[in-house]
């Protein structure tokens, strides 16, 4: 194999080793159907494979990877929207949860994760990206770089995310992250 290809392949193997789990979570945030989600993940990995040569260090590799992944997933959502006619809402439009006393009973981790993804699937693409970035532990600056939102808007959305998560997953203050 030529030296250039092996380098590209080696770089991509490192990307896969480091980011595959996060990309699987990202794909799950954008697509509820398991089969379509596998296609989306494949689409994201192919897009990363093709784009890696173009990485020019103007941003961090992490930002680059998340930009490609989110942009690929956003295109996927646009295509699905044209077919399914779904309606997504913004973070501000999410309905308040029912009586929070019901949520104080212990909820299995798997149920909480499923509920979280159900919540994410209702969101408009841009709010979904902020939510995913927040749940992956990214700071406001990184989120701003990936989404293109102003720092002010990122801060506002994160504040709303914290409010939503606190109300929906109140279990003695356990952080769903």
């Amino acid at each position, binding site marked *: 194999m030529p030296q250039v290809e092996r380098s590209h392949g080696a770089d991509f*193997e490192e990307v896969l080793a480091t980011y595959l789990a996060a990309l699987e979570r990202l794909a799950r945030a954008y697509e509820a159907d398991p089969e379509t989600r596998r296609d989306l993940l*494949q*689409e994201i990995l192919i*897009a990363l494979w093709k784009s890696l040569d*173009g990485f020019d260090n103007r941003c961090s590799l992490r930002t*680059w990877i998340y930009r*490609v992944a989110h*942009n690929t997933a956003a295109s996927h959502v646009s295509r699905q929207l044209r077919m399914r006619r779904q309606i997504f809402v913004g973070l501000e439009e999410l309905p308040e949860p029912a009586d929070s006393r019901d949520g104080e009973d212990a909820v299995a981790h798997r149920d909480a994760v499923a509920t979280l993804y159900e919540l994410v699937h209702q969101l408009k693409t841009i709010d979904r990206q902020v939510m995913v970035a927040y749940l992956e532990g990214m700071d406001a600056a990184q989120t701003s770089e*990936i989404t*293109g939102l102003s720092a002010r808007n990122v801060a506002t959305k994160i504040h709303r995310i914290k409010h939503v998560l606190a109300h929906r997953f109140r279990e003695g203050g356990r952080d769903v992250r």
Partner: protein
Amino acid sequence: MSVEQIQASAGSFQRRIQGRNAREYVAAIAVVVFFGWEFSRTPDLLARIGFGLMIAGMFYMVWALLSRGSGRPLPEDAGRASFIEFQRGELVRQRDLLRSVWRWYLGPLIPGLAVLLATSFNHAIQAGRAFPVVFVALFAVLVAAVFFGIARLNGRAALKLQCQIDELDEAGR
């Protein structure tokens, strides 16, 4: 998933996108076949010119859809653009496509339609009866109404996209 599997699936993925695009243009191909059949069987020179212009118009329309349409793969520099930049670019492209529908979608069909309608009108007048003349005139009005209706619908869709573009610009400030 290994690197080799990704590489191997990149080619089949691209073929799947192309297959998806090809299905979208089956209707256009069927129309071209129909006009081609009419072209081959009519002895009227003017009608042949009309059918020929319609076929050329359909080919141009299909080419325009293929080069500007929605089935394009993600650009390889997608990592350089934030989501807002990327999405804005896509929305602007789609908005401009809708705004220019007269140029690439409706316009190419007008010369062929005009010649065919003129041919039909000529035959109707030569037949010397009122009904065929009225029928062709009404058909011409109907075609014009459909064309303007399509342009109007696309104009409205372009306005909706402009609202989304404005929202993105606001979110980025």
